[in-house]
């Protein structure tokens, strides 16, 4: 049970991490908010969050399995997370606002 919860947490953090990395890109920020980055642009903060998310996911994977299996689970989780984010951006882009409260359409 503990392992299953940790693995779910690993998947969730990798999806969040990929989501933050996508938001750090101008084109996807526009898809989510409808306008360009404000000033100052949150690019660096989003990239840092993204890296943290993916890193946390690796630590969680390593806490469940031996490093050999954990590395594979992590790489494959990143792949699945990137697919999820790509498809969310295609069909439900506004969902990503949940990941980063400042990401919302600005008036005007």
């Amino acid at each position: 049970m503990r392992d299953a919860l940790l693995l779910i947490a690993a998947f969730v953090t990798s999806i969040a991490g990929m989501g933050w990395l996508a938001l750090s890109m101008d084109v996807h920020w526009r898809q989510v908010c409808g306008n360009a980055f404000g000033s100052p642009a949150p690019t660096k903060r989003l990239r840092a969050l993204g890296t943290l998310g993916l890193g946390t996911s690796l630590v969680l994977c390593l806490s469940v399995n031996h490093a050999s299996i954990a590395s594979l689970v992590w790489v494959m989780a990143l792949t699945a997370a990137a697919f999820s984010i790509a498809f969310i951006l295609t069909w439900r882009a506004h969902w990503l606002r949940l990941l980063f409260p400042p990401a919302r359409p600005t008036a005007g």
Partner: protein
Amino acid sequence: MFQSFRSAMTWIHTWFGLVLGFVLMGAFFFGALCVFDREIDKWAIPEARFEVQPMPSFDRVLLPEFEAMSPSLETMQIWGIVADNRSSLIDLVSIHETSAQGDARTERVVKMLDPRTGKVTNGDHFKIGSEFFYPLHYSLTLDWQGLGEWIVAFSGMMMLAALISGIVIHRKLFREFFTFRPGKGFRRSTLDLHNLTGVVALPFHFFFAFTGVLIFVGQYFPIGTTQLAQLHELHEQLEIGESKIPTERSGHAAPLASVDAMMAEARRRWAAHGMPGEVGVIHLRFVGDANAHVAIYPAATNSLQDLLNGVHFNGATGAVLQVDPAPNAVQQVAGFLTGLHLQPFRHWPLRWLYALGGLAGCVCIATGLLFFVEKRKHQHAKQGSQAIHVVDALAVTTVTGMVIATLGILIVNRLLPDTLPAGWPRHDDLERYAFWFAWLLAMAHAFWRTAPVAQGRMAPAWVEQCWTITVMSVTAVLLNWITTGDHLLRTLSDTYWPVAGLDLALLTVAAIAALAGRKIKRRAENASMIAESVAQDAARA
């Protein structure tokens, strides 16, 4: 010849991708199915539908079966028992010498045993997953001179080249990392999906193509029997000298000691080393001789390598001869690379991710083929060329035709009676014929119904084969119910996932194929309406 490096890479990517894409599609599709090979076996063999059991008693259950399988103890070479962590029926393999016309030859007898009853199963069952889809994945079942393995290995090499050249020719690798735009026209969205499935799953594609090629390295670089043959032999002699495992009979008869006691000792040793586990594989040699050798290996559950941590016993005395040494660095790397591909472990989240990775590979290759056709079909239509018709027909054969062939073998498996009338071919042969015949029919249909592509229109073959897939998938699920009584409500309430999972997967395939068929039909109708109105406008003008 080429104006730039990028155009050279484009040429490689396009043409090798086109020619070998058909083979790679098969390797990826059946590879993805192989993640569930033992589960497919259980669907195909109703007698195997029960939970995985621990290894039964050797002394009471397995020994009498082996004695019945071998003509005499003097000629027995190997008795092997394989009870991996996902198979319910246990494989018993007996290899013994036969001297046909003076030549020393060996004969191999394989039986499947139900560990609950201790009885071998009747009839010639065919494990569609592990005995057909699995070899199909790496050898196309073309066994002559290892031809299939060579073709798949070469395709694997070219897959690596296609991945690298793909990265070179992709203009916006990072900028379009998360990009899929289904609304931006068929050609654009096809290319987006090709790039997305190629780039996002790149680590998977790269490592699986690479390790797949690596696993068969002995096939194309057989240096152990050629250039380094002498060194190889010398090394073998040294290893034998250092090992306490006997390599030949002593000539002194001695009865076999209790193998159950040896299994208990092996389990105790694994637990003492912090790796508790069930017995997965047992190998016996020279039974009946004082030099009898029994090797016991654990079933890999959360490890990348099986056949590690083997404990070796003297079969006559039951004493431990030696324990496999810990693998050295080279063996560890080799074990990691081959283990990540062969996946002996039971880590279900990772297995599912592998299956999705394999299907992403299929989508990548299929969209590559579709893009090739879309990019050229109008130009070819103007030139009156038939080349694009051939490519599209082969694409239909590979994409939907392959699914039809797979469903064909499942359906025939459920239709054939357990005992076939005298004079009929064996179960496995009939099921194989069904597979290839279904694929051949799909191919004939694909060539017949893709002719409109040569006029720049959408081929009706795609829609028709999508519908065929829907009907066949539902038929397979219904036949499973009718012939075994295992309908989804029962398998789901019993949480018997091997059968419930495959039935659910078949129904999902049916739904996806129906949706895809409807969508393609609409698109074709819209395209023809636009073409008609353009033609009317032109006539008016």
